[in-house]
């Protein structure tokens, strides 16, 4: 394959946060995570149990990824669809291993805001809302966070204006202090690079895409930037991964998550 785009690599990076054998879930309005879960299942993680968000279908093979996450194209051939309550019960009791979460704002401890920029009850920008994240981010095994808007400088912030979904440490206490069994965010993938979370629960930058400098990341990151680089954590996509992305998402729904300038970023094997 002659090169790939940032959106393709980004989805592959998200897919690689999944370990084989996990029970994985994404919510609505999450095309990058949605494509990533299927890419993982078709490449390195065939033993996953994949729960397709908003249809709650188990291990479906989508006809294609449509631009809405409650559509029959996502689950037509699934052998089983969980009921809404069946999924949320499983997630609440800790039977789901990994969930993908994003946010209009994300702080250094991985708390996310999908409710309102400027906070409530007087929002500057009313975002869509959190669905079920405020409950199940406490109980699901671990979380893969992502944002495609890191470069804006407004997404990775010192403090979220409204805390919708739980990271490692909130103003009311740590996960342990709150009595939560879920282990919290493990990865944060952005269009600039990949973070993991240090033992104290704070994000640390582990790798950047090859066309991104540390200065770029510093300029875009509002929380305290810790750096502990290991470029092997962001290896180039394989041909099989790229083929999976392209066949699953022929409409390019994943690309809707990115600003226009990011969609021009291209990479090739030798340059990577």
């Amino acid at each position, binding site marked *: 394959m002659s090169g790939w785009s940032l959106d393709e690599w980004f989805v592959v990076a998200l897919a690689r946060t999944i370990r084989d054998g996990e029970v994985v879930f994404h919510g609505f309005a999450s095309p990058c995570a949605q494509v990533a879960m299927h890419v993982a299942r078709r490449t390195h993680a065939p033993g996953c149990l994949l729960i397709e968000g908003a249809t709650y279908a188990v291990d479906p093979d989508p006809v294609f990824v449509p631009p809405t996450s409650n*559509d029959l194209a996502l689950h037509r051939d699934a052998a089983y669809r969980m009921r809404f309550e069946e999924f949320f019960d499983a997630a609440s009791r800790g039977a789901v291993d990994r969930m993908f979460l994003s946010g209009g704002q994300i702080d250094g401890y991985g708390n996310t805001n999908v409710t309102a920029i400027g906070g409530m009850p007087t929002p500057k920008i009313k975002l*869509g809302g*959190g669905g079920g994240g405020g409950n199940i981010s406490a109980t699901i095994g671990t979380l893969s966070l992502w944002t495609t808007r890191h470069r804006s400088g407004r997404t990775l912030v010192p403090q979220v204006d409204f805390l919708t979904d739980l990271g490692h440490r909130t103003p009311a206490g740590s996960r342990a202090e709150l009595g939560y069994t879920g282990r919290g965010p493990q990865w944060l993938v952005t269009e600039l690079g990949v973070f993991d979370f240090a033992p104290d629960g704070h994000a640390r930058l582990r790798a950047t895409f090859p066309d991104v400098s540390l200065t770029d990341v510093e300029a875009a990151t509002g929380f305290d930037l810790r750096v502990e680089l290991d470029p092997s954590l962001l290896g180039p996509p394989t041909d099989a991964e790229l083929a999976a992305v392209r066949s699953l998402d022929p409409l390019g729904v994943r690309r809707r998550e990115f600003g226009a300038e990011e969609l021009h970023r291209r990479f090739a094997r030798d340059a990577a």
Partner: protein
Amino acid sequence: MTTFHLAPDKRASLSEAVALVQDGMTVALGGGLSARLPMAMVRELIRQGRRDLHVIGSAHGIDVDLLVAAGAVKVSEESYVGFEQDFGLAPAFRRAAESGALEVRESTCVSILSQLRAAEMGLPFLPVRGLKGTDIGTLHPEYAMVTCPFTGEELVAVPALSPDAALIHAPLGDHRGNLHLEQPYVMDERFAHASRTVLATVERLAEPGEVAAAGVVIPAHCVSAVVEAPFGAHPSSCYPDYAYDRPHLAGYVAAATEGGEALREYLDRFVFPGEDTCRGRIDADRLRSWAASDRDWQELFR
């Protein structure tokens, strides 16, 4: 339902059924996101000039946004309102929330689900996991903390919730009110069991034997009234009958974003003339073409 509904024939006109919803009521909206939304009833609520509604649900889209655009909603207790990655933020909902015209008591899927289940079980509350440490509780002074009498664990308690009315759209039903739904059912079963009044529209009324053979998901004794309303979920999808009407939604989002005259034109074209006239403006063959081939299906989303 809080008590069963035993009338042998629940058939009603759309205006008769929707007249059971009064100003200020709590209204649960069935379906989710862009699928099986009770749009014929939403449009009739607007035509009847309903005000001050308190809407309840999980993740929703044009149903809530259109009601807000028409000035029918005072409180939104949905867990999400928007158009996902397709058209983004919900324009009327967002504008009303930002101006203070709409009170957003944003909820979560688990909270609403647990509140409905408590009502179904005749319990005053249920405890839920999570929420502690989030800001969601600041929007819900009715939540409380409860200590488990067995383990001492501190949990958030959410009160029972019986919506005054639930609005549900189904592909198939009979005159008794039995409803067949295709998955995902989202919260429709819980709404049907927990709400005082359940109003259903169906794509097609059929003989009870046909509905039973397809599978009854919501039984007649939970349903107060049933109305035949073809394309009653449009512009959301109602498989196996029709897919999501993407150009229509794009047009709505543009009109609602602009507001004023553009929004008025949308309402004059797609709401106020009534279901029969508005149905004639739908490209029905196109929306049914999803079943012809995977390529046709994909084309509906371009």
